[in-house]
């Protein structure tokens, strides 16, 4: 296949240019990873919106998905596009930054300023590449908890996220039940399914099959596995949509031509669209980060991680949950959210569960879905009343 030639902004230069806040945790703040390694020092890049109240009880942590980042509610510094959840987060929005202090950090292993495979390995002075330890969703959440500590926040009013973000939300609620008042896992799952692992493996193999990948040590060579990463993105992008959405958007329409080329150009609009998605993605995302983050999702399994059935993981949890799924999402289908809900019911948790009717696929959680917004608004409003009632009696701390 032919992808358009290369990109003016290399991923490596993008990192250094990342604006926003960051915190480096030094040797006094070790991060023990699930794989057994200890990561130190490491950096977490983040953005905050709104003002932290004097009582520090208005903080909401937003967790981004696989290819998201901390720029949730502002123009993206690399792509120039709107923040990935600007419809949801901002002044007067559902997650209202006039009232809430909203935090969003780039996950550990990411490539927008937080420590990941592109960062410098202090032992060698060179980028980690594949020497970077494999990190997990619980590792990401531990790092986020350290950030929350750093910001002086004992309890979060809410943790909210979709897809990989939903995994982080569930891990937050499971690991730190006394630090989260309300949790909203959207279009998520308590473990990555075989089908999803399979799709991720296709993407990783595409990256690793690109000669420019060079075993992951491409940073100093000037070559970047753009073609492999673009193919990975194209395949993954299809899984984020739905047959109905693809048909509605493209049908069998041809791209800039009257008839078939009888060749392998992008005859169809849908091909052209996917190629564009692939090209755009490699401008802002590091191929190795893609390997690491997809791996973190594959490894995610709350029951295995906590060594007990899901209902036991959440037994008598004080966290209020709002579980949301979308009917047209075949990547994180409603059955997965229902499974979480059943376990939360069995655990005696305070839980709401809604399936939003939408044929837009997994990506629906990022789109303007009025019903979804209405549900999340209602949930947050109800939680806010209970949170205020709890008020001064709130007990803090209690890390599990």
């Amino acid at each position, binding site marked *: 296949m032919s992808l358009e030639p290369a990109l003016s902004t290399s991923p490596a230069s993008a990192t250094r240019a990342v604006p926003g806040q960051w915190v480096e945790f030094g040797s006094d703040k070790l991060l023990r990873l699930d794989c057994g390694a200890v990561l130190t020092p490491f950096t977490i890049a983040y953005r905050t919106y709104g003002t932290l109240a004097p009582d520090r009880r208005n903080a909401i942590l937003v967790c981004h998905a696989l290819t998201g980042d901390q720029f949730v509610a502002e123009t993206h510094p690399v792509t120039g596009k709107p923040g990935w959840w600007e419809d949801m987060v901002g002044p007067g929005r559902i997650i209202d930054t006039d009232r809430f202090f909203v935090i969003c950090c780039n996950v550990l292993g990411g490539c927008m300023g937080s420590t990941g495979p592109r960062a410098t390995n202090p032992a060698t002075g060179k980028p980690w590449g594949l020497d970077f330890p494999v990190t997990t969703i619980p590792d990401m959440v531990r790092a986020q908890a350290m950030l929350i500590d750093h910001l002086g926040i004992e309890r979060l009013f809410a943790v909210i996220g979709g897809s990989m973000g939903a995994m982080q939300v569930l891990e937050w609620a499971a690991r730190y039940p006394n630090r989260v008042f309300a949790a909203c896992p959207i279009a998520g799952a308590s473990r990555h399914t075989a089908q999803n692992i399979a799709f991720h493996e296709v993407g990783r193999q595409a990256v690793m099959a690109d000669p420019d990948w060079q075993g992951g040590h491409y940073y100093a060579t000037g070559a970047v596995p753009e073609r492999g990463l673009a193919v990975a993105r194209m395949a993954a992008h299809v899984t984020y949509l739905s047959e109905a959405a693809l048909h509605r958007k493209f049908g069998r329409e041809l791209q800039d031509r009257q008839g078939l080329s009888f060749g392998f150009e992008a005859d169809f609009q849908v091909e052209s669209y996917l190629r564009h998605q692939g090209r755009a993605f490699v401008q802002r995302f590091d191929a190795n980060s893609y390997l690491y983050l997809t791996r973190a999702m594959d490894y995610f399994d709350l029951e295995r991680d906590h060594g007990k059935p899901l209902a036991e993981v959440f037994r008598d949890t004080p966290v*209020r949950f*709002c579980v949301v799924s979308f009917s047209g999402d075949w990547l994180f289908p409603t059955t997965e959210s*229902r499974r979480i*809900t*059943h*376990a939360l*019911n*069995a655990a*005696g948790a*305070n*839980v*709401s*569960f*809604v*399936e*939003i*009717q939408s044929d837009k696929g997994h990506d629906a959680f990022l789109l303007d879905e009025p*019903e979804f917004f*209405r*549900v999340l*608004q*209602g*949930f947050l*409003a*109800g*939680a806010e*009343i209970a949170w205020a009632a709890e008020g001064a009696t709130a007990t803090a701390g209690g890390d599990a």
Partner: protein
Amino acid sequence: MIQTLDGIRRDLSLLADMVEPGARVLDIGCGDGTLLAYLRDRKGVDARGMELSMDGVRDCVAQGLSVVQGDADSDLKDYPDQAFDLVILSQTLQATRAPDKVLGQLARIGQSAIVSFPNFGHWRAILHLALRGRMPVTPTIPLEWYETPNIHFCTIRDFLALVDRLGLSIVDAAILDAQGQRLKLDAHGCLANLIGAQAIFRLARNG
């Protein structure tokens, strides 16, 4: 004695009168959340709900209520024993596939239960069937047989017999007319079965 000041249906208002303030309550088949919101706002209960229709669930959650999409026939088994002080099944029993099993689940997950249902033994229903030879359509049984979700109608006496068979006892009862006005009748009597259009029972396990 009937409070309809808040625009809540009279039968719901009567049912709400049976609810202890501050109780931990699960309303099964909570619809758009009218009763749950009322109980939360007026009785300060810890209000949870289960509703089959997604429209209903969305309406509830959008009001800040904790409601899950679920089916009384299949999803009550997830809840632990005695998880709630009170479980409410308001005008829903007759729409379940296995009312006996649902009642059994109610008794398992709640310290007590409140069940309300339309009485199929009401004279209007009997006359409708006897004289016109057609399935009854009455103020409390408003839909034609082919479009009703109510697949397991029962009379008050049928219900009492089932309660007895399940080893449950009646703690409180209210017999209502079609307008939701309470009738001063013995729930176990023939008259209640004949002129009660709907009934509300509070149940507890024997012993």
